[in-house]
């Protein structure tokens, strides 16, 4: 594992992970309410085969924000991001981008509109070199500030190794290339799916440390993150999913750790959207009548009417 020696301010941990780094990109609350959201999702319902993965999810992302979606494994976070990117198809609900309904649009057309995703697990083109990966990302790029050269400035180790096969890079380096590949398309909204997966915490922090520079060019970021504290550190707003339903939404500054924990695990019954922990029953297969999944809210009445609306 050859981590490149940190060079330049980009790699220091101080930058970009502090409140300061985050605060200046977030619009004050009042202003936000009058803006039109850049990305909006309304009442999204998505199935995985017979499983209901997303249950009436709605959210809005405003320009310049860092919007984080958190939740346990299988909560539906990646499904949500993939649906926004166009790889999954909702049964009902809409995805709106800059006011335009893009729900029926193919992923490649969403990318050229400005919705670009960095997929879970990096998914670089294995037989292509670093530079070639970036070149593919730039093939159908919109016009904008990001070019391959600028990506090399952002990750300054990359230029020297641009002709290497991506399989020879470390996990963190691959993640950087994946982000670069998305950036050169000049997106308006950058979707980041589980950046931290498989990476050492130090590396993760370095990568999140890039965010301010990315945001400074006018991008908006919608990210999915399993590491809650990391998400809370960088996000201007947070959205928690549990078994396909929304359990919490708000600004990190307003949330107590207890509330977040409760929303994440579905404990107590005091989370936002009270009945949501037992309503819909998102990512669970149908339990038989009278049974409840062990980790669901204990306040559930055990009644079976709502279990399977299908």
């Amino acid at each position, binding site marked *: 594992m050859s981590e490149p020696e940190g060079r330049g301010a980009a790699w220091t941990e101080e930058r970009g992970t502090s409140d300061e780094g985050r605060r200046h990109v977030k619009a004050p609350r009042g202003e936000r309410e009058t803006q039109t959201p850049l990305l909006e999702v309304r009442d999204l319902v998505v199935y995985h085969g017979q499983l209901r993965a997303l249950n009436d999810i709605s959210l809005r992302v405003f320009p310049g924000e860092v919007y984080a979606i958190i939740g346990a494994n299988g909560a539906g976070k990646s499904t949500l991001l993939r649906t926004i*990117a166009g790889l999954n198809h909702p049964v009902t609900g809409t995805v709106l981008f800059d006011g335009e309904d893009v729900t029926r649009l193919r992923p*490649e057309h969403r990318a050229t509109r400005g919705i670009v*995703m960095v*997929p879970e697990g990096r998914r670089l*083109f*294995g037989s292509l070199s670093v530079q070639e990966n970036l*070149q*593919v990302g730039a*093939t159908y790029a919109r016009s904008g500030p990001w070019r391959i050269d600028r990506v090399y400035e952002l990750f300054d180790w990359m230029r020297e190794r641009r002709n290497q096969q991506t399989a020879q890079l470390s996990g963190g380096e691959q993640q950087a290339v994946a982000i670069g590949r998305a950036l050169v398309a000049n997106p308006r909204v950058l979707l980041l799916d589980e950046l931290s997966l498989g990476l050492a915490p130090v590396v993760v922090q370095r990568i999140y440390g890039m965010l301010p520079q990315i945001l400074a060019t006018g991008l908006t970021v919608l990210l999915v993150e399993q590491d809650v504290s990391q998400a809370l550190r960088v996000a201007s707003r947070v959205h928690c999913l549990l078994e396909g339903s929304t359990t919490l939404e708000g600004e990190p500054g307003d949330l107590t750790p207890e509330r977040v924990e409760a929303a994440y695990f579905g404990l107590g019954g005091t989370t936002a959207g009270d009945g949501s922990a037992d309503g819909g029953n998102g990512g669970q297969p149908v339990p038989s009548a009278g049974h409840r999944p062990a980790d669901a809210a204990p306040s559930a009445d055990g009644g079976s009417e709502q279990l399977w609306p299908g």
Partner: protein
Amino acid sequence: MAWVNAIIQGVLTGGLYALFACGLSLMFGVMKVVNLAHGDLAVVAGYLAIGVITVTHIPVLWSFIIVVPVMAVLGYVLQRTLIQGALDRGVLTTLIVTFGLSIVIENGLLQFFTANSRAIGTGLPLVSGSFKVGSQIQIGYLLVIIFAVAVVVLLGLQYFLSASKYGRLIRAVADDKEAAQLAGADYRHVFGIAAAIAFATVALAGIFYGMYSQLSPTTGTDTILLFAFAAVVIGGLGSLWGTLLGGVVLGVAQQIGAQINISNEVLAGYIVFLAVLVLRPQGLTSRRTQS
């Protein structure tokens, strides 16, 4: 000396086989499509060339210029419609559809052109002649030309894939078509381009085959398809130069078989093919471990 002649013959024939095989390899490598109609497409190109020459009386070389682009367009259209439709429904459907296409093409040719073999007369004494090396080795000009063309085509393909925008896209889509979509690429279009290239190379090979040997409606499956596949498998999927190596190995094996007994020519090739399939399915050049 007969053996040396045979081996040279085998090596040179490998060029023709490689020309047949590279399109098959491309389609399988990029789209994961085993095009069972691949050989028949070569025959179609050959018949088209014959038709064009018969009707317009243009010199043979012009038939290349007309037929190859036509086949390329046909490839793009067929890929975007039939083959993509089959791919969307699964591997089984793809095999069934390409097999059906093969049978339809063969019987169509049979119906319209009868079962008689045809050849494309080159009319050029240079091409149908041969030269001597030393006192006992005789090499046909045509075969050398075909080998040279095959090498040029492979070089061109390699350059295209490594250095051009669409070449990169093709390789990217072959690696991960979803990730390519996320980068803004419509993989169906990229598949179409790959198919167009495959059809163009197989058309080239088919016309040459018509000059070198003879074409009949069943040549596609009798001879071409299995040989093309043998070249791909022996050489190793994923490597263009592997298909040349595979073609050469196949050609040499066939010639050795023929030296033992003339009726063993085709059989020898099949036996080598089966041996590779069983013992080393990833081929001679591949680094990967399974097909």
